[in-house]
């Protein structure tokens, strides 16, 4: 077993032969009753006496100079207790800090939470008020006079790259270009990942396919809108309750933006109604704190759905060119991609991870991927499940499918012939350890779904996906109570059932019943810094911390038993949930259970508490393959998903039902991305579909049951073999569905979404051409 120096824990894989009591089972979740009875408190469910209501004034213009803001009339309105504008925030210099797999820059965040020199998108916050009622707050917003000078805007990333495009940031010089450009532009950054020699690779190819693809921005569309309550006292002590994927990260951002000591802000994460990456950043929190600080009263802020669409989250839309070459017998000789991702109003699209992932499922000698991060007059993008990867991998997986067809090779066989495996060097640098892509492809090929007959206008598609997964800073505490139960204190907000998985690992390590472990998500003052829930890291990283904390408890329990028996500590072993005398003393004393030792802990040294503070390393990537059958209605252009199967490597599924849940949920989000979801802008630069009526996410009748196969190739750097699973499932659906539609109609779509009007148009054009 390898000792992992990064964590100080014995985190090597324990091997698959250890008998497990809890890991791999499907118990109900600890928060299940609260969630089905309405007890669970989400972001908008906090009420504090004397609470004010905060509201945001948003720019009606996609791009405008803010010449002046007059808040005097609003401030004079009875019931208005505080007004906030750009003048309440100090400027911040350019500095990148990690947020999930993405980076954020304080110079940008301070401008995104409150417009400064300019409003950069429709919906950009320009002022905020706190008042004694909702109605007064709304009225106050109408009394704020903002003198805008509207400027020409640009919505499309390719347009934004043109030399004469309206400039969002007058000082933006493209990073990553040699020599550095002398003039500013909307291009924030160029990235490149290259191995081998693509020109030589294409020269060696018998077939080369080159295609251009477009995708639309899509929103994470968590059903719970952003919401928080802030309360700052006269001496500057602040409480913040918020719906977030990372309350420590939110605390850090708020402290920076408001010039407050971190110790003065205590953040409690509410239950979170979905995030998918979109709740890794702050929007309302600094405003609520700022308003509360001015008013010295608690302030509650809740976004409307309209605000969620216009001012938070989406992920990038993109324009891409993909070129892949292969020999006649199906060996891919080169892959090349140019990716243009729109970042919204501030730099920081996920083009870098997109570029890293583009060809990651393949073992290629020659790869060149160039990516561009481009700002436009849209809301700043936020992470969305495997940020960047679904976009680039969609394009590549479509070309792989076309290549298979051209070569007359089964698309799974073509993938198998080129699949990344242990030892493959990815274009972005590292060599893969044990990974499960080949297994997912082989199981897909053997799955009954792959052989099932298809009817007229039906088609089948396949696509694979890759995501890195991350670890990072994490704490956990495990408290042994006097009666032998345990309290597990965690720092990663639970979005999809991670509390269950973490309690299962604690129960497994301690040898006690699962329902004797009660979890809580601690506030930021009660547990050390823990990075956010994102990057598929919660079960992995908090899991490592829980295991280490549990082993700390076991160590202490053995010490206590040794003390009671008056034998050396190393003469005690922990087995079957009991301390047993071992070695020369074996059999000398009755084994003592955790409960028995806990009951007399006061006499043997005081409470037993295990703790872990780690920087979790050894996160392992997860690969998956999806199969989908679709039927196309030639009259309406509507594509119906008939059958769907997800096969993905989980390393080891701690709670298989929640792993399947991630597969199912990700696949259905991908179905929405493929077929319906998109941000639609008018020529005036305003979003036309900021609601669930016109931004159509899948409803129950749009989708079938989602079959799942959990592939388990253990992660060698986790005791139970865990890999993150939450993000990979959203990567393959778009290509799998595009490939299925091609299979049904013989038409290759290169633009998302493949919505009914677009599909119908292509069918009509094909009919006209015939």
């Amino acid at each position, binding site marked *: 077993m390898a000792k992992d120096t990064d964590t100080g824990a014995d985190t090597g894989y324990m091997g698959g032969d250890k008998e497990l009591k809890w890991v791999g089972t499907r118990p*109900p979740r600890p928060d299940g009753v609260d969630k089905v009875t309405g007890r669970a408190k989400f972001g908008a469910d906090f009420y504090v006496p004397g609470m004010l209501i905060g509201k945001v004034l948003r720019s009606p213009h996609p791009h405008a100079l803010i010449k002046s803001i007059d808040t005097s009339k609003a401030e004079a309105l009875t019931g208005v207790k505080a007004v906030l504008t750009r003048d309440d925030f100090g400027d911040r210099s350019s500095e990148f800090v990690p947020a999930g797999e993405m980076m954020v820059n304080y110079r940008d965040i301070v401008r995104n939470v409150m417009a400064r020199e300019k409003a950069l998108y429709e919906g950009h916050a320009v002022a905020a008020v706190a008042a004694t009622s909702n109605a007064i707050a709304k009225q106050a917003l109408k009394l704020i006079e903002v003198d805008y000078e509207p400027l020409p805007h640009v919505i499309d990333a390719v347009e934004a790259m043109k030399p004469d495009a309206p400039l969002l940031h007058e000082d933006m010089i493209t990073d990553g270009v040699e020599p550095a450009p002398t003039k500013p532009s909307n291009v924030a950054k160029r990235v490149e990942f290259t191995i081998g020699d693509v020109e030589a690779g294409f020269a060696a190819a018998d077939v080369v396919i080159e295609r251009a693809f477009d995708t639309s921005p899509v929103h994470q569309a968590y*059903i719970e809108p952003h919401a928080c309550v802030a309360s700052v006292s006269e001496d500057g002590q602040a409480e913040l309750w918020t719906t977030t994927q990372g309350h420590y990260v939110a605390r850090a951002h708020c402290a920076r933006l408001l010039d407050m000591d971190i110790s003065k802000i205590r953040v409690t994460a509410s239950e979170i109604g979905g995030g998918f990456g979109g709740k890794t950043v702050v929007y309302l929190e600094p405003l609520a704190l700022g308003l509360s600080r001015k008013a010295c009263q608690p302030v509650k802020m809740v976004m409307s759905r309209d605000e969620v669409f216009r001012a938070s989250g989406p992920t990038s839309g993109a324009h891409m060119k993909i070129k892949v070459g292969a020999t006649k017998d199906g060996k891919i000789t080169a892959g090349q991609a140019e990716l243009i991702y729109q970042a919204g109003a501030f730099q920081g699209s996920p083009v870098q991870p997109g570029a890293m992932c583009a060809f990651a499922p393949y073992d290629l000698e020659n790869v060149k991927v160039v990516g561009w991060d481009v700002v436009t007059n849209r809301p700043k993008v936020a992470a969305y499940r495997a940020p960047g990867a679904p976009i680039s991998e969609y394009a590549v997986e479509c070309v792989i499918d076309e290549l298979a067809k051209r070569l007359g090779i089964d698309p799974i066989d073509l993938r198998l012939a080129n699949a990344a495996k242990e030892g493959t060097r990815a274009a972005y640098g590292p060599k893969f350890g044990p990974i499960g892509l080949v297994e997912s492809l082989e199981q897909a090929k053997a799955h009954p779904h792959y052989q099932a007959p298809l009817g007229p206008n039906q088609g089948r598609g396949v696509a694979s996906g890759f995501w890195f997964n991350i670890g990072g800073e994490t704490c956990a505490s495990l408290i042994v109570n006097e009666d032998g139960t345990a309290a597990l204190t965690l720092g990663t907000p639970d979005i999809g059932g991670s509390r269950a998985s973490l309690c299962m690992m604690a129960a497994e390590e301690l040898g006690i019943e699962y329902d004797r472990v009660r979890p809580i998500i601690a506030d930021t003052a009660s547990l050390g810094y823990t990075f956010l829930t994102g990057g598929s890291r919660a079960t992995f990283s908090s899991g490592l911390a829980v295991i280490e904390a549990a082993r700390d408890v076991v160590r202490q329990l053995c010490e206590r038993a040794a003390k009671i028996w008056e034998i050396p500590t190393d003469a005690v072993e922990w087995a079957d949930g009991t301390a047993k005398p071992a070695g020369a003393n074996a059999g000398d004393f009755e084994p003592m259970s955790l409960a028995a030792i806990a009951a007399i802990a006061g006499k043997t040294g005081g409470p037993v508490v295990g703790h872990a503070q780690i920087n979790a390393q050894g996160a392992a990537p997860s690969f998956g393959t999806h199969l989908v059958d679709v039927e196309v209605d030639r009259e309406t252009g509507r594509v119906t998903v008939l059958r769907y199967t997800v096969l993905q490597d989980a390393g080891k599924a701690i709670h298989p039902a929640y792993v399947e849940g991630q597969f199912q949920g990700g696949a259905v989000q991908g179905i929405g991305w493929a077929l319906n979801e998109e941000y639609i802008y008018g020529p005036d630069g305003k979003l036309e579909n900021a609601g669930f009526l016109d931004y159509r996410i899948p409803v129950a009748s749009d989708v079938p049951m989602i079959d799942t196969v959990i592939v388990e190739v253990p992660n060698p750097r986790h005791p139970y073999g865990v890999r993150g699973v939450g993000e990979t499932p959203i990567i393959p659906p778009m290509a799998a569905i595009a490939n299925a539609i091609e299979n049904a109609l013989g038409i290759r779509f290169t633009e998302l979404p493949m919505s009914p009007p677009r599909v119908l148009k292509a069918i009509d054009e094909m009919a006209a051409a015939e």
Partner: protein
Amino acid sequence: MPTVSMTVNGRSAAGEVEGRTLLVEFLREHLRLTGTHVGCDTSQCGACVVHVNGKSVKSCTLLAVQAEGAEVTTIEGLAQNGELHPMQAAFKEHHGLQCGFCTPGMVMSAVDLLNTNAHPSETEIRDWLEGNICRCTGYHNIVKAIQAVAQGQGG
């Protein structure tokens, strides 16, 4: 301001509300029954579904004054005598939730479905749930939970 009175979860509830106060606002803000959620502004998401006189209704589509005299049941009133309603138990046992934000509305809708149609087909379940959006689960386990109750094998 008009007063409104109704029976909520078996108890009489009354309050002064503005005429434009929505039922969901009355439940959440006046009665602090925060299990009824708000996910949208356009009556699409179904997170706010409650029962009014035994039928599922989006409580954001109704004014509080329109519920005058009505029998309202929210998710908080579904469990009886310390026992989860079979639909609540089934959502819990069959993992019919991830984040749980859609869950109260889903459960209230599903209870009304089975009151209306005790043995719905999968298609009927999916069609019924069109007004309840879930972004997390892909609906798979939600449909399974409802099927389990319909087949008498709830939680």
